[in-house]
């Protein structure tokens, strides 16, 4: 089975995240880059599917030079090879454009199954799986907390507010995974060493057949008008409990008409 797992490098949540004042895009230089956390679950799920079904796991990442770190991590976890789509023309692409670029890159890798995290920790749009399924005309198996594959038949549990939906489809399909679907493995020393020898195919938009007029900040379907740091919250009242802390909170709640 040809499994493609999508990996995004994001700014570390623990480091300061900023937008650039000139074009309102993410300041990737200001923050440490890390692999998007939910993507680790996607990589793990892809590896487990490969281990059960046979085949190959290809990492596909779109992003600047720095994204190499995240690609290496995915390879160290056990993915077989990688495609790194890197091109200045892609900078500032919005979700709609990103889904187009990835669709085109998937044309180069081919796939039976595309696996990704349900959202990224930076933009948090949570739309990519749906957009890709729509573009590719294949089943959208998103928000999965369980995946079962039998031949070309695939079943997932889709996490919902009330519990979950049992969903079935035929391959090919797009699967997005939620946290807790599995326990992502740590790369072993052997894995880290092996990753250095695994092939990374670095491609630009022309290689992927991406039309330059369809991507990039200038052609985006959305634009940031302005931004500012959020005003700090007014300093609250903090009291050390002297045996009546619960009563004191109740009094505060009463003053705010919550009780």
């Amino acid at each position, binding site marked *: 089975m040809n499994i493609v797992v999508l990996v995004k490098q994001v700014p570390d*949540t623990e480091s300061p995240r900023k937008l650039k004042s000139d074009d309102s895009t993410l300041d990737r230089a200001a923050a440490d880059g890390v692999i998007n956390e939910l993507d680790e679950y996607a990589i793990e799920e892809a590896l487990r599917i490969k281990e059960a079904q046979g085949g190959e796991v290809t990492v596909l990442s779109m992003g600047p030079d720095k994204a190499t770190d995240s690609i290496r991590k995915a390879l160290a976890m056990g993915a077989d090879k990688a495609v790194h789509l890197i091109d200045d023309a892609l900078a500032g692409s919005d979700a709609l454009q990103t*889904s187009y670029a990835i669709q085109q890159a998937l044309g180069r890798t081919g796939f039976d199954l595309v696996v990704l995290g349900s959202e990224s920790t930076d933009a948090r*749009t*949570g739309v990519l799986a749906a957009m890709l399924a729509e573009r590719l005309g294949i089943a959208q198996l998103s928000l999965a907390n369980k995946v079962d594959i039998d031949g070309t038949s695939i079943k997932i549990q889709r996490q919902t507010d009330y519990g979950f939906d049992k969903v079935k489809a035929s391959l090919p399909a797009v699967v997005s995974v939620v946290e807790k679907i599995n326990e992502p493995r740590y790369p072993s020393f052997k894995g880290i060493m092996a990753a250095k020898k695994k092939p990374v195919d670095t491609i630009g938009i022309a290689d992927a057949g991406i039309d330059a007029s369809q991507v990039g900040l200038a052609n985006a379907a959305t634009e940031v008008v302005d931004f500012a740091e959020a005003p700090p919250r007014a300093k609250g009242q903090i009291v050390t*409990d002297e045996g009546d*802390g619960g009563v004191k909170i109740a009094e505060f709640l009463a003053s*705010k008409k919550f009780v």
Partner: protein
Amino acid sequence: MAEILVLVDHVDGDVKKVSLELLTAARRLGEPAAVWIGPGAEGAKDKLAEYGAAKVYVAADEELTSYVVAPKAAVLAQLVADKSAGAVLVSATAEGKEVAGRLAVKIGSGVLTDVVDIADGGVAEHSIFGGGIIAHAKVKTGTPIIAVRPNSIAPEAAPAAGAEEAVSVSLSDADKGAKIVEKVVQEKGERPDLTEAAIVISGGRGVGGAENFKIIEDLADSLGAAVGASRAATDAGWYPHSFQVGQTGKTVSPQLYVAVGISGAIQHRAGMQTSKTIIAINKDSEAPIFELVDYGIVGDLFQVAPQLTEEINKRK
């Protein structure tokens, strides 16, 4: 005035509050038209009209709710074309955002997700990076598709006609790719939905074990609140993952958020920082959660929380 399509979220025939919020926001952009997909519109039409729906489009065919997301986007795409809609509003829930994403591809329009306010003219406000930055954005290509975070906009009644119009859509094979074979409802009791609740009580690492979440639930029930949990608590298996508030879980924006035994790591703050009033109970006076609070008690949650529950019940 252009019609503004509002996709209605509903459970068992009841309109969810977020849909009334969306109808309120839609009035700033044009004439609200509710879009109801699935059975049960009869009982909900009056409510939608009360909150400003001039029209209620009803796509009642049960087939539309038998597949993951795609049919809903197909209904909206057809209506956008037929009615020359001015914008489409959906709730910024996981599924709402997916509908927005598919619709964006279908009609070639820009999509804004997780919006917390909409100004006249369609400029949308986002609270990003865990609430640290307020950004304004707009759609410049196509019919704007805007996913609005529940509890962000106060719903206001503004009675309108609520004229019903049936809609039928024929689905493509691609729309029917992912079949829902069973809906499994897990027990959640009588508590409100986490993302819709006016009050949320969350427990974290300090709660110390699954059995102690009873303290959090009792406090929540005294206030008619939803229960949430920090990642530390869900990772430890003390409370189900679907109740996690934070960057990799749910984003909530209630009137009142009470963090019990939660230190307030950025991961958690990203999911609750836009709450209107914040209270914390934590034994560590240095915990970062206290930087956010309107009122905080430094103390033992096992003393303070039950006392608070008792005091609230006494005052009822």
